[in-house]
């Protein structure tokens, strides 16, 4: 696990979007093959300022404003990556990523496979995702499960500034394509210490954020915030909750999840995305098959509803709350 506390002399207080910016800066400094492309990322520094200052430092050849076409951005990235560049493309909001699906599914994810390793596709697509910032229609979706279903495409989601820094650097170093989803509700939520000298984080590992013996709470992205708060509430009631940040949905670190639930016997999975076919279903199925004899209660999922993400007037009612998580956990304890 990332451990800023051990080397406080190198730790800087950064929020999540600043950590992203630092990771991009570091990766571009370390490797001249890393180039950035996307809409509004050069002069404007990105609509969330994730690429602020990078054009000034690295120049327009490495920080490219593209025409407004997401499919093009993904296709350009595939072409560049196939010939040894390491493109890091920004899709402005996840709600606009669908035009890029064909490039990601039919090409990026399978180029190494279908050429038997002759060509590869070391690209990163970054996209802000999730609700909770009162954004307009189509700006708050969480459709990570669509992508986690694609063989060959890593899906990585940070939930803190230090994990954003460590996971993005790992994603850029990765020899295969990575979809890097940034919980935009956390972009400016809080500044936490980030050690810029730390090694990149593993892309195939869950992170246990809080140990506990009674129940396992499993989540990722912005919902980690509510999940940790729920664990605090449960502690007040004497329930010791273990909190796991899945972080990488594909490939999934089943071992950590199964080991935790084998210990606690209970699991609540929390995600913002709709219930049916959400990635929680994959985790629930894994626990049902690999931890069945240790389970003391049916696995519960606390999720968004099976509706489109509502406009922001009702987004609070849609997204899992601390209360819903606590209630689900208590129900499990009483099962």
């Amino acid at each position: 696990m990332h451990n800023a506390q051990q080397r406080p002399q190198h730790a800087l207080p950064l929020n999540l979007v600043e950590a992203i910016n630092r990771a991009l800066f570091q990766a571009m400094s370390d490797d001249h093959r890393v180039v950035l492309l996307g809409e509004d990322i050069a002069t404007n520094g990105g609509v969330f300022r994730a690429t602020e200052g990078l054009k000034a430092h690295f120049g327009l050849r490495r920080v490219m404003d593209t025409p407004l076409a997401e499919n093009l951005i993904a296709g350009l990235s595939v072409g560049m990556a196939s010939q040894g560049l390491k493109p890091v493309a920004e899709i402005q909001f996840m709600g606009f990523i669908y035009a890029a699906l064909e490039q990601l599914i039919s090409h990026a994810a399978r180029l190494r496979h279908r050429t038997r390793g002759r060509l590869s596709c070391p690209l990163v697509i970054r996209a802000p995702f999730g609700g909770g910032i009162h954004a307009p229609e189509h700006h708050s979706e969480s459709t990570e499960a669509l992508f986690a279903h694609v063989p060959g495409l890593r899906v990585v989601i940070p939930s803190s500034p230090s994990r954003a820094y460590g996971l993005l650097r790992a994603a850029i170093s990765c020899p295969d394509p990575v979809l890097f989803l940034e919980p935009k509700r956390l972009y400016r939520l809080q500044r936490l210490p980030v050690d810029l000298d730390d090694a990149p984080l593993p892309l195939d590992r869950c992170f246990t954020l809080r140990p506990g013996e009674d129940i396992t709470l499993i989540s990722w992205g912005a919902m980690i915030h509510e999940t940790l708060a729920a664990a605090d509430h449960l502690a007040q009631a004497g329930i010791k909750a273990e909190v796991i940040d899945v972080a990488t949905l594909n490939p999934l670190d089943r071992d950590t999840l199964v080991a935790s639930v084998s210990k606690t016997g209970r699991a609540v999975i929390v995600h913002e995305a709709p219930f049916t076919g959400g990635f929680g279903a994959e985790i629930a199925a894994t626990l049902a098959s690999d931890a069945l004899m240790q389970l003391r209660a049916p696995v519960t999922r606390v999720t968004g509803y099976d509706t489109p993400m509502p406009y922001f007037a009702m987004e609070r009612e849609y997204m899992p709350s601390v209360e819903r998580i606590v209630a689900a956990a208590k129900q499990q304890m009483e099962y």
Partner: protein
Amino acid sequence: MFMPEPYQIHQRLDALADCPHWQRLTEGYRNMQLIRTFDKKAVNLQRTGQLGTYASCLGAEAIATAGGMALAREDYFVPYYRDHATQYLRGVPLYQILQYWGGDERGNAFPADTPASRDLPNCVPIATQLPQAAGIATKAKLTHEHAAVLATCGDGGTSRGDFYETLNVAGVWQLPLVVMVNNNQWAISVPGQLQTASRSIAHKAEAAGIEGIRVDGNDLPALLEVLDYALDKARHGKGATLVEAISYRLSDHTTADDASRYRKASELHTAWQHEPIARLRHALVNARQWDAEQETQWQQHCRDVVDDAVKTYLEHPPQVPADMLDHLYATLPASLGRQRQTLSRQQGDPHA
């Protein structure tokens, strides 16, 4: 020095007197004959259950041969799926082309020591290769390579957003890119007039601010002139070109198609009068650059080469099932490792 006339269909076969590159043209003729022999054999292999669904290149021999001959080693080729001649001329062995159409990914593992080693493999989802070609051209430009990218698609592909997005960025970024459309009149069963109301496909370059050229796709010397010009322009940083090569798909769309359902036999019969190989042979024979004896010898040579390729293809040992897992990631993730064990056990490997 060739200067294209805007949107006039460029032809050369009927005016070869001032085009003294006979050696290049006879070489092109040989290549076209070879690939037609290969194509005929591939269709036969499919009909006899020894190849999967196959996209014939009958009628596209001049276009793909010109591509392969005009490209330099340091250039890049981004094909659609009727470019067997270009792939072959870039160094892909014929047996690997069969392997690809035989359902085996090893057909895309082009030999490392050939110009094809960096080329993209065939692209089945229509026109999706074009933004990738723009990405490769961007890379070539960023790294100051003296290289061009040639990408191909069919007339149906020009209806896709990928096509327009690619031309658009190629114009904005002045990319070293040549997009060549094989306008063979038919996208499976849909004819050109149902794809576009544009005056021509080449006119679509206008909106992107790049040059559009029309060329007779059954005229090898004309194609070579146009591609030499467009690729050279790209290599010298003078921008992208859209080339519309007008041909006729003499085959079915693929071996899974039956074109008699939607097009008239008389139309096909007329198209055969303009097919690229006979036209070039006629010109070469008239100019005393080719004769019947050479023809007989070369046809025998083509049969021998193709028979060898078929033999290599059929004798190639099959892949092991774990290959489908082993090449997806640079290193096998733990979760996939478990599926690999299961698969190997099912296949009877006691060590799995």
